[in-house]
């Protein structure tokens, strides 16, 4: 009678069931939370007040009067003409208020795979950063981060939403800070 021990497999199950393991995992996760701020939403997602009310130089001023985001065509990382105007205004504003460090967040719409869209969002953020640098914003003030397709702002199943989600958002003191 042959006996085959397959304890390695059952060990995994044992440990994964062990409450102490779960507790430790939880503790690590909570510690991670305590050490940092939660990711702020982009200013544009926060529901802004009247445009005229923004204090010059405030983040509200930047979002409302300058425009904190640009949009991209499907699968494209080219800075469109309308986006160039927005970025030109951003560059001017950022040079007038040099104390802000910024993070450029790159995003993709949901019509792509997860991994590719992470890279695509990074490419959009990099293109945006590069454009701002070419307009005089020092590169060392800028960080980039990609959220791929994981942070849509518009939720529906057609182009009207996807075109809003293909974006790069310039966040003052933002996510990567």
């Amino acid at each position, binding site marked *: *009678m*042959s*006996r*085959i*021990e*397959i*304890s*390695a*497999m*059952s*060990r*995994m*199950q*044992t*440990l*994964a*069931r*062990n409450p*102490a*393991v*779960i507790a*430790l*995992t*939880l503790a*690590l*996760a*909570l510690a*991670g*939370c305590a*050490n*940092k701020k*939660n*990711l702020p939403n982009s200013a544009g997602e926060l529901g802004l007040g009247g445009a005229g009310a923004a204090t010059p130089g405030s983040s509200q001023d930047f979002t409302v009067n300058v425009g904190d985001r640009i949009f991209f065509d499907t*699968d494209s*990382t080219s800075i469109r003409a309308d986006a160039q105007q927005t970025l030109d205004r951003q560059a001017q504003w950022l040079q007038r208020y040099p104390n802000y460090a910024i993070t450029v967040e790159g995003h993709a719409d*949901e*019509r*792509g*795979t*997860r*991994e*590719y869209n*992470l*890279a*695509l969002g*990074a*490419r959009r953020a*990099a*293109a945006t950063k*590069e454009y701002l640098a070419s307009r005089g914003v020092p590169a060392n003030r800028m960080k980039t*981060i*990609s*959220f791929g397709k*994981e942070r*849509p*702002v518009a*939720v529906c*199943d057609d182009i009207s939403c996807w075109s809003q989600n293909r974006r790069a958002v310039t966040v003052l003191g933002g*996510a*990567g800070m």
Partner: protein
Amino acid sequence: MMKRSFIRLVLALAGMAMMFAAPAQARVEININKGNVEPLPIAVTDFLSNNELGPQISQVIAADLQRSGLFAPINKSAFIEKISDPNRSPRFEDWKVINAQALVTGRITREGDGRLRAEFRLWDTFAGQQMTGQQFFTQPENWRRVAHIIADAIYKQITGENGYFDTRVVFVSESGPKNARQRQLAIMDQDGFNVRMLTNSKDIVLTPRFSPSRQEITYMSFEGNQPRVYLLQLETGQREVVGNFPGMTFSPRFSPDGQKVIMSLQQEGNSNIYTMDLRSRTTTRLTSTQAIDTSPSYAPDGARIAFESDRGGRPQIYVMNSDGSGQTRVSFGDGSYSTPVWSPRGDLIAFTKQSGGKFSIGVMKPDGSGERILTSGFHNEGPTWAPNGRVLMFFRQNAGAGGPQLYSIDLTGYNEQQVKTPSYASDPAWSPLLE
């Protein structure tokens, strides 16, 4: 934490008297290479026991076999013979008359030390012979696992292929609205039972993948707003960052020997493929393009790597040697191809295809020939192979307000089934099957 109780699952071939008659070649068999297989009628009787465990184990076995699409368990109300001694030959006539080509009998008893003893026998009713008989010892809380192991033994005996029921799946459990989605890593049995969360934080976590030993998971987390690849030890809950790269690392997978993690590193607008040796911590760059190279997946022999690149414009599948040489495009169909995953058998690469506004799951040979689409719709993504290379799991997002859910489908394109999870789910990764 240091002390851990061992649960031993001891497999013993129950040879003994009944085996004398067992033929070398069983008559009951299924050729699973054929397309739409007619499922084999099988009677899975309630295992004898002095509690509900016997019938419960039989139910799990029958459900596994049924979901494979290769077996059609017969309704118990049709059974004529009531099995009272699983060690005696059944009345084959009683089973033939209800067209049960195979019959499963068994018994669950409690050992003196508290362990369960699970015995089963698989009978070929038309040949009037036992095909196999085995027994297992385990702790009572492992009863579902014993049922899966028995289902694997039945599957293997009748199909000649390894089963995949005693396996697990890691995935991303998703909850909340689309624009404020929460994500956690979770693990479950392949049939959707025993779901447990592995992480509990607001950070985005993506693309978990098993190590070959099933003891570790590599995944991507946005912890600290630094999107990077991590390693999670299932045994201890210990986590660590994989490597110290100057940019976002993502899309990780283990090498077949478990010694390396292969992943993408993003720097500025480009993403290239790197490996990190987990022992020496040496990193090696494998691709070097002004493009997006991602989703690397090793062939089971470790000699080659499939990956996705948009160096030619749209994302396509490429194959290279494990040292990065010989990078060759293999996908040439309409549309774009992503997330290549090499079959554990080595014979096929599964992928996500985007074409004509639809997202499909398909397979092709490693040279790109023989493409077959298995399922197509609004959004299907991210295939993962069952360890026997016969079934794929993936996630599907339907148009509308809901979230992604997991599905499985046979390599033949038949037998598509939802794998139910407590909340939305994506990025499934199937565990290996330990021999």
